[in-house]
Every structure is written in C-alpha cells, then in structure tokens.
C-alpha cells in the first residue's frame, strides 16, 4: 500500500527536526540529573582548603591534617634528612619528579617550597594505604615513608624507591604559605 504521492523528503526533514529538538530537550532535562550527582555545596565546603600552623612541628616529626577526607603529612626534615636525599638517588624510580605528581613549585629535589618542610598526601600510590613515617633508624630498619600494606618505600621527599609495588612518587597537594608559619593546603592561589 505504497502511496507514490508521499513527500519523502519532507518526511525525512520532519523526522530529523523532531529528533534534533528531542535531543536538545532530553539533554536539557538530563543535565540537572547529572549535576545532582556531583559533590553538593556542603561537600565542596568540606573539601575547601585547610590552614595549618607549621611552627609547632618539631624537627624530625610529622603533623597529619585531614583535607578532602585524606591525611596530608607535614614533615619538618632535619639537616641530615635533607642531606640524605641526594645519597640514594640511583635507587629511586623517579628522582627528578618527572611524573606529574606535584605542582611545578615542588618539582625539585626536596619536592617542597621550603627545603625543611615537606607537604605530601599520605596516600600510597600503590593501593591507597597510609604510609608510616619513620624518622630514625631503629634496629637497622628503613627510614623514610614505609607503606605497611605491600611494603612500598619512599624517601624523605616522598620519592618512591625502585623494586617496590608503588608506581610513582607520593602526591604533593597544591599549597602555599600565607606567612612564615601558616600554610594553606588545597590551594596555591591568592583567591581560591
């Protein structure tokens, strides 16, 4: 029952127009459903940058602050810790921080803005455990950051050793100093 008078080009034009408009409409309708699932204003507020006073951290010790639900380690390294950083560089996987695991201002040997203070995410790059900080040699054990889950080891700059499961150096979050002692973690811009 094919009617030869059917205007096929107009029919296909109509189908295309309706399909195009429906796509626009469905996209507009779906957009809020997608936005709904993103972090809410409350979650974004909780994920805001945190301020830390680094003056209370003693040499060779660590302070842990929570930022976006993860521990951030702030370590004040001793002179000998800093000196040790260049000793074992041939045992490291990425001694020059070539992998993008830090902001540009931390792409140096100490992986920090101030040489004595390391700011690093306490999340092992292998499977997300929190590495332990070992500042002094006890019973000949390894010093640096040691992950208890699968034995990954990192030096005092959070750089990963070769022959461990972790693939990359620990992440350095964006941070900046607002004065000598006050540190902002989570943002490196004046206005965040």
């Amino acid at each position: 029952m094919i009617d030869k008078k059917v205007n096929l080009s107009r029919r296909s034009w109509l189908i295309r127009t309706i399909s195009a408009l429906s796509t626009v409409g469905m996209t507009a309708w779906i957009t809020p459903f997608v936005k709904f699932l993103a972090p809410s204003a409350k979650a974004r507020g909780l994920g805001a940058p945190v301020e830390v006073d680094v003056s209370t951290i003693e040499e060779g010790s660590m302070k842990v602050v929570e930022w976006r639900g993860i521990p951030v380690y702030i370590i004040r390294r001793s002179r000998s810790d800093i000196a040790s950083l260049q000793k074992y560089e041939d045992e490291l996987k990425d001694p020059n921080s070539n992998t993008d695991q830090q902001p540009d201002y931390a792409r140096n040997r100490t992986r920090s803005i101030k040489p004595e203070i390391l700011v690093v995410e306490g999340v092992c790059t292998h499977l997300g455990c929190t590495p332990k900080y070992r500042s002094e040699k006890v019973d000949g054990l390894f010093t640096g950051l040691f992950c208890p889950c699968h034995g990954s080891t990192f030096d005092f700059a959070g750089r990963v050793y070769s022959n461990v499961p972790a693939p990359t150096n620990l992440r350095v979050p964006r941070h900046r100093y607002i004065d000598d002692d006050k540190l902002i973690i989570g943002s490196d811009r004046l206005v965040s």
Partner: protein
Amino acid sequence: MASRLLKGHRFLRWVNERLPLEKAYKTHMSEYYAPRNFNFWYYFGILSMVVLFIQFVSGIWLTMQYTPDAEHAFDSIEYIMRDVSAGWFIRYMHEVGASFFFIVVYLHIFRGLLYGSYKEPRELLWLIGVAIYIVLMMEGFLGYMLPWGNMSYWGAKVVLSLIGAIPYIGESLQVWIQGDYQVSGVTLSRFFALHVTLIPILLIGLVFLHIIALHQVGSNNPEGIEIKLVKNKDGVPLDGIPFHPYYTVHDLIPIVVFLILFFGVIFYYPDGGGYFLEPPNFLPADNLSTPEHIAPVWYYTPFYAMLRAISFDFLGISAKFWGLVVMSGAIGLVAFLPWLDRSPAKSMRYKGWASRIMLALFTISFVTLGVLGAHPSDWMPFWMAPFFTLIYFAYFLGMPFYTSLENSKPVPQRISSGR
C-alpha cells in the same frame, strides 16, 4: 512480511530468535489497531505514563540524598533544596509530578465515565485501573509524609487515626502499622521503605497489566463502537489505524504541550498556590502543635469532605467509623461500574439524558466536595458536604435504574466519516 523489519540487523535478528521482539512490536505497535477517532480525552493515558516515568526517575535521584530518619528528614530535604546541585529542580519535579499524576489520572478516569470504557469487554481493564488508582493514592500518601513537615506529620496522623476507627481491632492495628504509640520516626522509616520499593513495584506491575489488558481487548473510542466487529479480509478493523506510526506521532503533540505546562508550574508555581505543597509543610513536624487549618493535598479532598460529612452515630456505631465506610465505599464503588451500567450504549453520545445529567451532577459534586475538603469545615453551610456526598452515591447506586429506564440511541456499526 517475515522480518522485513529486522532486515540487515544481524544482532536484532539474533535477539529475535531468543526473545519475541518482532512479535511484541507487531502486537503492541505496528499491528495494534486503535480506533481512528480518538479525541482530546484520549491523551491522558499516555500522559500518565509520562508522569510515571518522571516520578520514577526523579524519585530514584531524591533517594540518593534524602535521609528517612525523624532527626534528619526535614533537614535533608532542605539540604537537597539548597546545597545539592539542581536538587530544588528534581525535588520540585517529583512534588509537582505527584499533583500532575492525579490531574491526568482524574481526567483519564473521567474519559472512562464519559465514553463507557469500563463496559464489556473492558471490565478487567477497568478493575486493574481502579487498583492502580488505589495504589497511587497510597503512594501519594506515603510520599507526602517523607519531608517530615508539620503537614506531613498531621496528615499522616489523621489518616492513620482512621484505621483506629475500625471496630475491635482498629486501635491495635493502628499501633501495628505505625510501629509506635504515635506517628513517629519508626513510621517514617517504614513509610519510606514502602514508598520507594513495594508500592512502586506494584504500580509498575499493574500499569504493565493495564496495557496488556488494553491491547487484548482494544481501545474504546468516543463513539463507543467496537471496531473489531467490522474487519477486512486480512482481519484488520476497518475503523482502526496502526498505533505506530499514527498514534505514536500524534501523541507527541500532547506530550510536548503537557511538558510545557508541567515545567511552567515547576519553575513558576512549584507549590501550586499552596495546593500542591501546603504552607505548614515548610515547618518541621511538631507532635505538639497541629497546623491552624489541616487538609490533605487536593487530590484526596473529595474523599476527605465525605469523611467529614458523616457526623452522626448510626446503628450504635460511631460516626468516625461510618465516615471511614463512606469514604472507602466512595472509592470502592468505582470498581463496580461495569456491572452497574445497564445501558446498551457505551458512549454518552448514544446514552439517554438521564445518564448525561447524572454524569454532570456527579462531576459537579466531585469537584465541589474537593473544594469543600480543602477548606475548613465551617467555610460553607454544613448541608453541602452531605448533600453532594448523596449525589456522588446516587450516580453509582442509581445507575442500574436510570441506565435501563432511559431511551438510548442505537449505536451504529461504523465510525461515521464526519464525527
């Protein structure tokens, strides 16, 4: 005709050998013949499917941020409204959707009354429809409680107190349903569970049955003519046209118009002037203070007015219980329509004047009861609610008499080319 449809679609052919794709497509779309004379009143079936879909999706999304707990429910709604991206939009979509669901369902039911869609052979279709309506009322009631606003709380309390009116078992049944001596957080949690799982499953299952039953018997039409009685040699009804593409394309227009209205309300009148979302519900539930004026949401108000209309004890049983009987009777009687209507014609176009006048009076009384139920009981003279309740019941209980006594016009075999 064998698989012209699936020509060139290897994957679909593979599926079709294992799942009756083509058969389902033919039965329900390309070879489902609908009468060619559908009018305005036939839009509301598909529109209620559209709203059901919107409610389903927006409801799933709301569940992700809502907390069904008396301590946090109200705050979690405010959290959705203020802090969650687009939360206000999805919440208002669900809230306005509830009212629009009842608007389209009431118009859909009215269409059934107008054209006798409940009559043989569509009795079961009608019964499934009544079940959907009752389940939908339960869903609306459970859902209205979840924001845990003051009207949520007192609305639930009033309705649950009705259960307490059942003689002997009422009070213990009420406590069992509430899970506490009063409406409390326990009630809220179980209402949430029912609102998001059991009732939606029932609703979708019943809607599925409704459509299957419809496609088994075929649609009625404004003339009330059975198109299946006159077929061509291929068994195609002469007054029928394939559902797809004719009615699928045809229905796009009402869907677009509906969506414009629907989203217009969401953006400009999300509280429906206090009828879709009542002002006391912007305050948290307070079990020590009833709102100034307590009324259910508009879609329950006709039945609420009937409940209030019964104010006298009868046969030694309290007015409270009779109110419950009248209210549930008013809903239950709808299910008996196929057997109450004795007219040989289906459509009002061929029925006599008595049927037309009774339907008009019934509609007026239903709307009036709805308006009365939304206002305080001393808003209008007291006689009005009982009077219109009587008319409501007279429509049903008088039907066997006025439909068999009136003169109806003979129904033609074919849908005429004009109207």
